[in-house]
């Protein structure tokens, strides 16, 4: 409950910042000034705290243990994923995610082992943001949430509430260090991607924004987003 209250306060503070005159004229990124500051702050924290912790975590735990921890949290997420699949009218996805939750929670030892994938029931992540997009709220301004990373205004409550899902579902039995373990584990899983971004990007902020926006479209359209016509702009002139 306290966690939800804290996240709600962060949400309202963020909304306040976004609407406090920091808006920019870039149509792809109307809150760019705020976002860039938030990105730089988060990168500094990541460099000094989260990245070293993630590297240490990766060194301490063997790959299969690391994958096991990530599987536990992915398994917990199967519950909201199943509900969102149904809300989007994808009965098969809802049923599949529910089956994954049951199989992995039992045969997979509370989700540590992804038995369902071995049985051919592959994960398909669905969340409230994707549901809202399917319901018509597809376009939403980009926002970089301090410490939590890239998002859209539509997805802010989703990102904040998502952090509370394990405690909401498991209750008081969910250990206090669980959230920390989840955050560090997620960051450890991104070591390779972030290294690749830093190696390739000329403007890492814009790279992150565009990659996130594309990935989100990929998720919303279940891996088959509309093909962009890059030539329209030139050939119509």
């Amino acid at each position, binding site marked *: 409950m306290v966690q939800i209250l804290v996240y709600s306060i962060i949400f309202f503070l963020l909304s306040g910042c976004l609407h406090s005159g920091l808006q920019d004229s870039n149509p792809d990124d109307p809150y760019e000034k705020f976002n860039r500051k938030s990105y730089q702050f988060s990168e500094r924290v990541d460099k000094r705290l989260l990245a070293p912790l993630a590297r240490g975590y990766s060194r301490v735990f063997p790959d299969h243990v690391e994958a096991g921890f990530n599987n536990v949290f992915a398994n917990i997420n199967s519950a909201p994923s199943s509900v969102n699949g149904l809300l989007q009218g994808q009965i098969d996805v809802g049923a599949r995610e529910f089956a994954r939750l049951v199989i992995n929670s039992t045969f997979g030892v509370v989700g540590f082992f992804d038995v369902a994938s071995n049985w051919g029931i592959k994960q398909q992540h669905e969340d409230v943001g994707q549901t809202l997009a399917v319901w018509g709220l597809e376009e939403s301004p980009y926002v970089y949430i301090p410490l939590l990373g890239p998002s859209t205004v539509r997805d802010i409550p989703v990102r904040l509430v998502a952090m509370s899902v394990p405690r909401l579902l498991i209750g008081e039995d969910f250990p206090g260090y669980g959230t920390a373990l989840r955050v560090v584990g997620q960051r450890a899983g991104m070591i390779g991607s972030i290294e690749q971004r830093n190696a390739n990007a000329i*403007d890492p902020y814009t790279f992150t924004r565009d990659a996130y926006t594309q990935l989100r*479209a990929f998720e919303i359209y279940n891996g088959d987003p509309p093909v962009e016509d890059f*030539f329209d702009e030139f050939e119509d002139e």
Partner: protein
Amino acid sequence: MLKKIILFFSLLSLLSLLSLLSSPLQAKDQVVGVEAARSLDDFHELLLDVMKSANGSEKEQLLRLRVVDFFDVPTISRISLGRTWKKLTIEQQLLFVEVLSELITVTYADRFRSYDGQRFSIDESEILKKGVIIKTTIFKGDTELAKLNYYFRDGRVFNVVANGISDLSLRRAEYGSIIKEEGYDVLLEQIQNKILKTRASY
């Protein structure tokens, strides 16, 4: 009743005619798809050679010969720079194409550093209004590493989408942002610095 039968057969004839007319188009599309897949197959062979080659300069040499044939670098440059492209002189455009070709070369040399059982599979194709997408997967042993979709137009690649992320879209966003904030000259300088940095890393 007779009218309905005549109408039915007229519609049937029309559908047959339409299917006959569309056959050459489908055949042409298939040829385009097959040619693109063949070109991609050759490129995959090249990437395997690049991974197996001993040093950075050898990798670059192998890639440099093929990058300009396989990728449509002038089109990539034009789309990446947007409206700025038209404001450049011919000499500046040629220089940008040359620099971008070099960036693509060193990026591939960096990404395909060593061979560890990687293999490629060509999965399917999708015909576009203008061009074709060839969908591929890269594996390491039995583990899927990434899904790579190559966008062909006029026989050459102008966009690669890796697990849903388009490199052309990323380039356009990044370059547009730098041009807007700092100007074209700074962008060119930053790309040249990136080439040097990437080259120093392998």
